[in-house]
């Protein structure tokens, strides 16, 4: 742990309390006239009324889905920044989200009846293809941090352009514009069950392997002298990134900035130990995404703003602020 570490347990507990607050707010607030008190009462004691169903079948799965997706993206962000030793890396900036999106969009055009679990396969394939390319570039050592970040952004731009091309060429595809912005509107329990195993396994493995992944953050020579096979460990980290980010994109579209922002916030709060950063990210990611979704539901009430738009609106200036703060120090 570095000297910047300040009571990570305290910070974690505080963030967790905030997270519970967001969860409760998310369940008590909605477009229908259900009062906050009633919503909370029904959350505690469900009955067979339609209002209870609203809380349990519409609001709760949405909030839970936001938690899982937030955790996935944040953990994937920590791993990818560690793996590539690049503070600008994230599932979004390295084109992983865009790869998954392109694969899903292409498959939706080819097989219009594709839905639910059917999108996970293409999402993994797309994310893996981009992930593999980025990992190869990263371990080949031909690119420094900056070049790698630029390569990632270029890949993302190309893939996004391809998605645009498909959308323009195919009218039916315009329906998924909302999904493409990153949206939790369609959250239901089946989607939660879909992503839950990937969150648990991906997050669990990331935490279990934190000690090994942490060495990746050092340069390769140090890693080798510590007896680590960087390619093997890096490969495992890359698979985890693909699984975590790909499954998130499959259930709610490409949501940006969570994976980029959360690792920076957490490192500033609690220092650099990877295990601590991972655990805190699994709390702060959901906190951030849950808050953004709540905001998206309020700002154009009773209509909704896709959560991906909110994370971009909040995330971009926040990231600039972080970069500025770093320089100023």
């Amino acid at each position, binding site marked *: 742990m570095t000297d910047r570490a300040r009571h990570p347990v305290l910070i974690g507990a505080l963030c967790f309390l905030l997270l519970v607050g967001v969860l409760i707010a998310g369940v008590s607030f909605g477009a*229908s006239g259900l009062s906050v008190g009633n919503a909370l009462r029904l959350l505690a004691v469900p009955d067979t009324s339609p209002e209870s169903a609203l809380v349990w079948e519409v609001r709760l799965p949405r909030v839970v889905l936001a938690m899982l997706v937030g955790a996935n993206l944040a953990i994937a962000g920590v791993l990818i920044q560690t793996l590539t030793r690049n503070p600008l890396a994230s599932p979004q900036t390295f084109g992983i989200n865009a790869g998954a999106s392109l694969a899903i969009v292409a498959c939706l055009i080819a097989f219009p009846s594709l839905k639910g679990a059917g999108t996970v396969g293409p999402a993994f394939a797309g994310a893996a293809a981009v992930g593999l390319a980025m990992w190869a570039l990263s371990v080949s050592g031909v690119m420094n941090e900056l070049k790698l970040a630029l390569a990632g952004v270029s890949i993302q731009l190309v893939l996004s352009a391809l998605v645009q091309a498909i959308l323009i060429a195919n009218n039916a595809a315009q329906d998924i514009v909302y999904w493409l912005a990153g949206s939790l509107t369609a959250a239901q329990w089946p989607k939660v069950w879909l992503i839950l195993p990937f969150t648990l396994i991906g997050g669990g493995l990331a935490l279990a392997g934190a000690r090994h992944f942490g060495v990746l953050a050092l340069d390769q020579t140090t890693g080798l002298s510590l007896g680590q096979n960087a390619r093997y460990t890096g490969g495992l980290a890359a698979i985890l990134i693909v699984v975590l980010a790909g499954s998130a994109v499959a259930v709610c579209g490409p949501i940006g900035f969570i994976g980029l922002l959360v690792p920076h916030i957490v490192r500033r709060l609690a220092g650099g130990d990877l295990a601590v950063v991972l655990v805190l990210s699994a709390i702060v990611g959901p906190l951030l995404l849950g808050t953004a979704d709540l905001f998206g539901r309020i700002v154009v009430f*009773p209509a909704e703003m896709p959560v991906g738009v909110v994370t971009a609106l909040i995330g971009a200036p926040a990231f600039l602020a972080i970069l500025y703060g770093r320089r100023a120090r």
Partner: protein
Amino acid sequence: MSRLTRRSFSLAVVIAAFAGASFAKAEDGPRTIEHRLGTTELRGKPQRVVALEFSFVQALDALGVAPAGIADDNQTKRIEQLLGKTIDYASVGTRLEPNLELISNLAPDLIIADEIRHSAIYQQLGSIAPTIVLNSWEGDYETIKASVVTIADALGDRARGEQALAEHEARIAALVARIPKGEERRILLAVATPDAMSLHTSASFTGSVFKAMGLTPAIETSDPVESGAGLERLVSVAPDILLVATDPGGTVLDQWQDNAVWNAIPAVRNKMVFEVGRNQFSRFRGLKTAEMIAGEVLAKVYDAK
């Protein structure tokens, strides 16, 4: 009283139509067509017309003109469905991005464009052929009706447009007469997409057709469409009659039907949910489409054949 006024109005329209017919024949000289982006000078009777929106194709058909070119989104089947028959025409690409070169190749003598989709290329279209710009994309029923007359005017036969309109209104009135009196239930058209629904309000084409039928749209606002609506929003709108427009393939409708909240919607409780075709109810606009919508609502909601 109101029926009497309507009838006498129809009569007046028919008389005006005949008067106009003899008048139009008298002069084929230049005439000025007023449209959304200004005025356009036309002379003679345009024969080679390019239509950049579906509603214009239907209007031309009602006026007995087969368009030379159509922005058909490269889907001939849609035009077949729109008109209920196969016509000979050349595709000029998508409605969103019509291909100017293909339009120019057709050497048209009239182009009909949409205000929202094609304002940006108005100058270019104008350099190919005289262009009139109408509101189709966000056009409500009244706008679409007025457009038929404007298009007829542009074709040099305003009378035919007024006649087509009078005939249409008579057909709609006959359909509306069969709706039971005192209907107060609120009706909503929702377009189902893979993960949300788009709710069509009173300002949408279908919503304004509902209004013209004497029905009450469930959302009364000036924005035609509210997109990205989730299940909770639908519950809060609480429509009594719900028409769900679907495309072939999976939509959110399949997922929602398994959700207990779905049953909290009055329309679902009272078995007043009907699936309708998305092309007819949400993509197409026109007199014929309005008649089709009225007819299908009668058949589905009121069980009237």
